[in-house]
């Protein structure tokens, strides 16, 4: 591997540092009661991976059912429960906490030169809330599930289904608080815990992205909470706020729900965008093109993200004037994302590029997110939304942004920071293969769904007219490839925990502060709090650091 920047220490002599956050204390309790952000991140990593595979297995069931036009694998009722649980688990138990609670939790304090998040106990609490919510969700699933879709649309969810709406609602409610506490913790940490010299414009873009996402978590999630509380009251006591026969307006629920859930899609994508900034810069050895534009576009997405929620309700009966306003604002919120994509592309310009696994995933992200984002604009233009809404076009749109975008970014980030988290490298060749397999599998799965949607195949259908079968067969075939692509990392990353090569402090020669300390890091991250005198992505500074080291050693 001559063209790679991986600089591993001499493997025959290298050893994992004896003292690190993993070895500091032992025993299950030392993990369950830890305040260390890195250990909590690992706890999160394990739990969200578990939920990803639960959600993924449900996706497998969906795709199997859709292999044939009839609902022959399972009854329509079961199918409805399967996709509802798939959506709920994937959104609230996987994607929302995915990058922030794992990578963000692990890396942000290190990036800004802090010993921990500002509120370690709250951090642990938010993991426990997550687990409690997850157990509740699993319990719900085991005891019969819920069939409202992940959107809990009233009056269906309040008056017309008799599945476990309340327990699921409670699970989502609790998971919401977990997310609020994570976001709150990040904001406080980023404001108050930065090392001396770490000014706002020296922060890595990963931190900016998380800052923006955290704002959304703190200000958006409570509205979801109140929406769920009202739904629960409507269902149990029949108070009438969402019941048209009592004078309530079922659309009010959607206003409240989407006031959270649209910003939530940016909660889901912004941290991923942060990962992409780091990865693209590191592997092209170049500072991010237009740092300020990328930083501010994150904030712009967060702010504008609060103004567009009703684009999910274009045909649901909001006023035509509101449609105009929300459609216009949707167009505005799409612009910062485009800025980011082009800034990343130009970061490559005159770089010195290598193609390690994280970079491959990042490339995948850029292509797929562009497709996903542009199709979002199709839906944001009110006219085309009429034809495309509630069809597989939407399903394809959001899987492109969520799976092709965020999941790719998550995998990119996991591979990128794996050496830091564990001190060991993963096997490069097979991981590159996995990246390529996921990319191919992904396109095979979800691209046909755009065509299906244009043809008019409605979403949430257990059975469909036979002429849609061919494309569905492609999609199902793709999902199997995709499943393999996701299974591979689990295998080789686990393998690498024991057999991976020793990574050393900074295998990628990256500039972030987290890379300047040992891997895996000490519990308090830095032996001494660093003083920052350089901007983010300053590769010249990194060179000088190295020379100095060599000088002092020699």
């Amino acid at each position: 591997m001559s063209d790679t920047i991986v600089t591993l220490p001499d493997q025959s002599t290298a050893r994992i540092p004896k003292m690190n956050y993993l070895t500091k204390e032992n025993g299950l309790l030392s993990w369950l009661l830890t305040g260390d952000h890195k250990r909590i991140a690992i706890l999160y990593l394990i739990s969200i991976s578990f939920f990803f595979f639960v959600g993924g297995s449900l996706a497998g069931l969906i795709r199997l059912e859709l292999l044939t036009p009839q609902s022959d694998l399972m009854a329509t009722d079961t199918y409805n429960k399967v996709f509802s649980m798939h959506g709920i688990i994937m959104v609230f138990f996987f994607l929302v906490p995915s990058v922030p609670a794992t990578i963000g939790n692990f890396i942000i304090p290190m990036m800004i030169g802090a010993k921990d998040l500002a509120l370690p106990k709250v951090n642990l609490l938010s993991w426990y809330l997550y687990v409690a919510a997850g157990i509740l969700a699993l319990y719900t699933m085991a005891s019969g599930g819920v069939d409202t879709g992940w959107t809990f649309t009233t009056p269906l969810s309040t008056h017309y289904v008799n599945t476990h709406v309340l327990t699921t609602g409670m699970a989502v409610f609790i998971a919401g608080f977990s997310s609020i506490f994570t976001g709150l913790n990040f904001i406080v940490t980023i404001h108050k815990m930065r090392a001396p010299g770490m000014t706002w414009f020296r922060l890595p873009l990963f931190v900016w992205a998380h800052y923006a996402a955290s704002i959304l978590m703190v200000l958006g999630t409570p509205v979801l909470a109140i929406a769920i509380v009202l739904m629960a009251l409507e269902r149990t006591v029949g108070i009438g706020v969402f019941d048209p026969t009592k004078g309530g307006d079922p659309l009010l629920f959607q206003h409240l729900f989407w006031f959270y859930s649209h910003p939530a899609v940016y909660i889901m994508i912004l941290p991923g965008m942060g990962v992409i900034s780091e990865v693209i810069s590191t592997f092209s050895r170049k500072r991010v093109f237009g740092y300020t534009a990328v930083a501010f576009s994150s904030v712009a997405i967060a702010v504008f993200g609060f103004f567009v929620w009703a684009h999910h309700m274009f045909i649901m009966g909001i006023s035509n004037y509101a449609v105009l306003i929300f459609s216009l604002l949707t167009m505005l919120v799409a612009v910062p994302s485009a800025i980011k994509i082009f800034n990343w592309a130009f970061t490559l310009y005159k770089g010195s590029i290598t193609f390690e696994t994280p970079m491959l995933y990042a490339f995948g992200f850029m292509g797929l997110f562009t497709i996903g984002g542009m199709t979002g604009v199709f839906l944001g233009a009110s006219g085309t939304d009429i034809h495309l809404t509630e069809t597989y076009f939407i399903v394809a749109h959001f899987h492109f942004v969520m799976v092709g975008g965020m999941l790719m970014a998550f995998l990119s980030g996991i591979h990128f920071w794996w050496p830091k988290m564990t001190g060991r490298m993963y096997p490069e060749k097979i991981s590159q293969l996995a990246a390529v397999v996921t990319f191919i599998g992904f396109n095979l799965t979800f691209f046909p769904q755009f065509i299906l949607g244009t043809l008019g195949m409605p979403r949430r259908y257990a059975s469909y007219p036979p002429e849609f079968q061919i494309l569905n067969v492609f999609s199902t075939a793709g999902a199997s490839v995709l499943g393999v692509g996701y299974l591979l990392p689990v295998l080789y990353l686990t393998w690498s925990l024991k057999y991976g090569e020793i990574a050393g402090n900074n295998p990628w020669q990256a500039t972030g502060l987290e890379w300047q300390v040992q891997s895996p890091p000490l519990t308090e991250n830095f032996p001494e709090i660093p003083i920052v005198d350089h901007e983010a992505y300053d590769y010249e500074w990194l060179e000088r650091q190295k020379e100095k080291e060599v000088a002092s050693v020699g």
Partner: protein
Amino acid sequence: MAHDIPHEQHFHDPANVTNPEHAEHHIVLPLEYSFVFGTLLLCTALTVFAATRDLGVFNPIVALAIACFKGVIVILFFMHVKYQSNLIKMTVGAGFFTFLVLITMTLSDYISRAWGLW
């Protein structure tokens, strides 16, 4: 370039942590609290009194204006925001701003629905 500053020995100086977002701890005195308390009671009396008068469309406006005033002085004095850093001031502002976004944008739908109810 910024990083051309000679690289110094790392030292540990807590003062480094003091960032511009920090405001010195200000102790609000009981007299000030008492004034605020008095004003709040006065406002309560005023708003109840205003409710007994028929002011037409101004009834709700007056009531809400008084409530806003009361809220603001509680925030400024009881909650010390007047003596806090700009960060806290902006945080409070951001909260109420988002709250207004929720209300106004939702109402924009309801108000503009074809007529009356829908």
